[in-house]
């Protein structure tokens, strides 16, 4: 039996799409828990034709940032670092942080989405600068940044449920035919070549931030095909290898290899050249609350500029001057105020920006993958045959991406209750269809699916589940589909035009913290330059 058939069999039970959802739809929750998600009622207000007109005096501000996810927070952080405090940061939700937001219960803080940051590359200068400021880089050793060991993911990092036992690492060991092993070796060698490849322009073939990648057509041409097609052409068809690569595509892009651009698929493996002392370059930084640690640190750098529960509903050119006029809805009061800004940074997904700032955006090409993340509070930590519990625990026989242990970094002693963050990208079906499912499927139905999947991986958790909190992301990640590198809408948005710039990982086509942070920083620097404020570029 191959991993492929196993997965399909499990998939049949785990997510037989909307039909199953309808059948289960009326089930009562079996465990305590909440059903949360991005506030789409507020989001969908933007679709409504009638919104209140602006009232009251017009507020004057230097830079208006719309969107308090990682990109918007990075924009604000960059402005603050440059000593520019004259800005407002609007966030539709009641809390900033976007996909990096977290929850907390009596047992632990836990992520609702993004939960780790790989040690950044040499070229990620602004991000490294921020990590130094936050004390996560504590110094230098042999000329390379030295990371605070408490922030690096503690051993044991990853384990894989494969052939009935847990093994260390995510690459299956043992039980592979010689031919399969040869394909694995060939794939890894090819990726190592791409990792060290440099284009004719002297830039790395694959960089992180991706904007710094080579524009050499030799590499760009990869974007014309899907990752699956590229793998087929390379003769990389071993089921275990393809199952692993599918896991990776879904993990970073929420998308199937058949829909991922080959350039993006390779980027996953070829772009990470983490730069750190003591050989820590291939490590990750992680925290119980996930990337909310970083989001909150950026938010703390702000001094009263952040306005949550406020969304930009309309952005237009100021007929009376060089700046822009933004109409801002206060969701609590249901009132609209007008802000006049010298510059604006739209740190929001493109599909939202398109609605509120039609004058500044081109229609086009972005699509998004939906995800479900469940936080499962358990009385005792999971065990299982083989290596002990790791930070990231993945099963070859599950459609989910497995679970991450929230207390991995904090626990000194093992054995107590913990929170497992379970991830499922709903990548099999049409995203629009899945988003409808997300709106209708009940908490109980999700809980049953989460528990069944978790117990299949860890039967030892039977009776140990205390609660299951489910979080739905309708637009969790932008999808790097073939052609995304040359998509005119993406290129247009990435370029920006004074006095409006965009800042979002959408502009990179890769929903990564590094990308969002980079886009925020360069948008902030463009706005600073526009406003004539002196600064030394971090980008």
């Amino acid at each position, binding site marked *: 039996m191959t991993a492929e058939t196993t997965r399909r069999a499990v998939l049949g039970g785990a997510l037989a799409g909307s039909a199953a959802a309808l059948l289960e739809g009326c089930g009562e929750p079996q465990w305590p828990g909440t059903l949360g998600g991005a506030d789409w009622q507020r989001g969908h207000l933007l679709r409504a034709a009638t919104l209140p007109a602006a009232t009251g005096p017009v507020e004057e501000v230097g830079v208006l940032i719309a969107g308090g996810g990682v990109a918007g927070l990075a924009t604000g952080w960059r402005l603050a670092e440059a000593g520019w405090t004259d800005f407002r940061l609007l966030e539709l939700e009641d809390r900033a942080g976007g996909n990096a937001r977290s929850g907390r219960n009596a047992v632990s803080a836990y992520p609702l989405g993004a939960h780790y940051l790989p040690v950044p590359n040499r070229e990620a200068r602004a991000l490294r600068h921020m990590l130094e400021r936050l004390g996560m880089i504590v110094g230098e050793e042999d000329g390379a940044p030295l990371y605070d060991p408490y922030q*690096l993911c503690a051993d044991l990092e990853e384990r894989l449920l494969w052939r009935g036992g847990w093994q260390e690492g995510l690459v299956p060991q043992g039980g592979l035919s010689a031919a399969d092993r040869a394909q694995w070796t060939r794939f890894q060698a090819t990726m190592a070549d791409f990792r060290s490849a440099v284009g004719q322009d002297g830039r790395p073939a694959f960089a992180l931030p991706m904007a710094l990648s080579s524009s050499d057509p030799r590499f760009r041409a990869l974007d014309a095909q899907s990752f699956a097609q590229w793998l087929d052409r390379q003769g990389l068809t071993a089921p275990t290898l393809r199952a692993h690569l599918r896991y990776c595509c879904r993990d970073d892009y929420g998308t199937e290899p058949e829909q991922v651009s080959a350039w993006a698929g390779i980027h996953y493996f070829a772009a990470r050249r983490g730069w750190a002392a003591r050989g820590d370059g291939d490590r990750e930084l992680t925290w119980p609350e996930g990337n909310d640690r970083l989001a909150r640190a950026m938010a703390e750098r702000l001094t009263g500029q952040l306005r949550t529960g406020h969304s930009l509903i309309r952005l237009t050119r100021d007929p009376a001057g060089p700046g822009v006029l933004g109409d801002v809805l206060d969701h609590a009061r249901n009132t609209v105020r007008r802000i006049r800004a010298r510059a604006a940074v739209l740190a929001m997904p493109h599909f939202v920006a398109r609605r509120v700032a039609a004058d500044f955006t081109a229609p086009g090409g972005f699509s998004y993958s939906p995800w479900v993340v469940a936080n499962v509070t358990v009385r005792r930590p999971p065990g299982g045959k083989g290596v002990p519990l790791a930070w990231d625990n993945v099963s070859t026989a599950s459609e989910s991406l497995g679970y991450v242990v929230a207390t991995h970094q904090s626990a*000194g002693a093992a054995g107590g209750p913990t929170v497992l963050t379970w991830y499922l990208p709903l990548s099999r079906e049409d995203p629009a269809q899945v988003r409808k499912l997300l709106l209708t499927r009940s908490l109980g139905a999700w809980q049953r699916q989460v528990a069944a999947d978790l117990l299949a991986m860890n039967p030892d958790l039977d009776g140990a589940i205390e609660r299951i909190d489910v979080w739905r992301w309708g637009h969790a990640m932008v999808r790097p589909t073939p052609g995304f590198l040359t998509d005119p809408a993406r290129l247009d948005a990435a370029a920006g035009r004074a006095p409006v710039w965009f800042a979002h990982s959408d502009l990179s086509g890769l929903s990564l913290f590094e990308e969002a942070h980079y886009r925020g920083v360069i948008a902030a620097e463009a706005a600073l330059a526009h406003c004539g404020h002196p600064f030394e570029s971090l980008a």
Partner: protein
Amino acid sequence: MDDHAPAASEPGAPQAPAPLAVILLVSVLVVATCGLIYELLAGTLASYLLGDSVTQFSTVIGTYLFAMGVGSWLSRHVHRRELAVFVRVEILIAALGGWSAAGLFLLFPLVGDFRIALYALVLSIGVLVGLEIPLLIRILRHRFAFRELVSNVLTYDYVGALIASLLFPLVLVPQLGMIRTGFVFGLANVAVAIALLVALRRQERVGADLAAALLVAASLLAGLAMADRLQRWSEIAFYNEPVIYARSTPYQRIVLTRRNADLRLYLNGNLQFSTRDEYRYHEALVWPVLTRVAQPRRVLILGGGDGLAAREVLRDARVGHVTLVDLDPEMARLFRDTPQLAQLNGGALASPRLTLVNADAFRWVRTEQGRYDAILVDFPDPTEFSLGKLYTESFYREVARLLAPQGMMTVQSTSPLVAPRSFWTVASTLEAAGLQARGYHAYVPSFGEWGFTMAAHGPIAAAAPLPPGLRFLTPASERAMFDFPPDMARRPTPVNRLDNQALVRSFAEEWGRYDG
């Protein structure tokens, strides 16, 4: 008595055909052996789990014999079909007796009062065994003259007892262990039942009984096959000494055993000390460090909730105050409030000079602001990742911060003989944390050759003025502790970090090789 009485006159007691009589006589031997084995198993288990073997054996044997009397008395209420009743008794004994050892081991940690379970089982098996011989005599009475019958049955009965009492200590317990012994003799019991049922199948409807017997046989075979796993589940069977206390706390499983004067503490199955030689371990842990500090006023002990290290420290009048950080409040409660155990540590945990902190040391050291003249790090071996964190560079950096400029610390560092790479990893890691380190070792019989690592901000003095009155350390033996012969000599090792846990990995490998 007529040897050939017609069967019709005794309904339910069919005339035994020749092969059946042979089976029945052999079964006397088997059931007698089995009966005594169960009795010995219960007695041994009781003294093993509850201690005080004289009392346990005496009460178990008394209860068992009394129950046999009850069984014999009850046999009068069997009016007919003695053979059928006998077969069912055999099946029941096979199930109860066969599973008795495994069941008692598994029950021990689960039930509130183990004695109730124990004596209920002893009573049930005793009653059933007590039924056997009277029934057999009645079944066989048509086959033999009464004189012969009594002679035969009782001879086989006593021979069986001899076989059992010799086999049990010489072969069964050492070779099979108690759990397997139970299953093997349960199988013998059920074999008798099956043999009788097969011999009877022409005359009687035996289907249901045969099915029950086969089911019991299958369960016993399964138990036998899984004996190793059962042994692990019933961790009590894992200890070689009688268990006198066992309790699971949220952090660990605490087990105390005692054999004669030797009291032992196990945490999660790992020996922490034996009262026979713990003074060697604790003198070696404490005095080399304490005597190298000019004024050890403030002492920190990390781990060591048994209070034995604290006992040594408090013997030094220069020590003004001891802070002891242990994860598990239950350990401190046990070693402070149980007179027998508090006696071992000289009441150290109740001393006004000692402050007990129940905290996870990994987190505690990160927030603690005090300075300590001597620090003793006495954690369990790095058998798992959560314990491995307490041996990392990050952890030692925090400990070094708490160490006074002229202070000294020492770290329990596993066996340099069994696990030299692991042992020297501790020194490399302390050095990576900016300290100077020196390994030393002592022979502690219950552990073997054991290692410690001393560390300080500056150079470590070669000799130390030891106080009088120690049982193990002398100036000459102390100097010798720092000498490492080639099989334990220092070797290059990685630094143990949070993100590589090099120590947990090498520890598992080296001890795995040693344990085979």
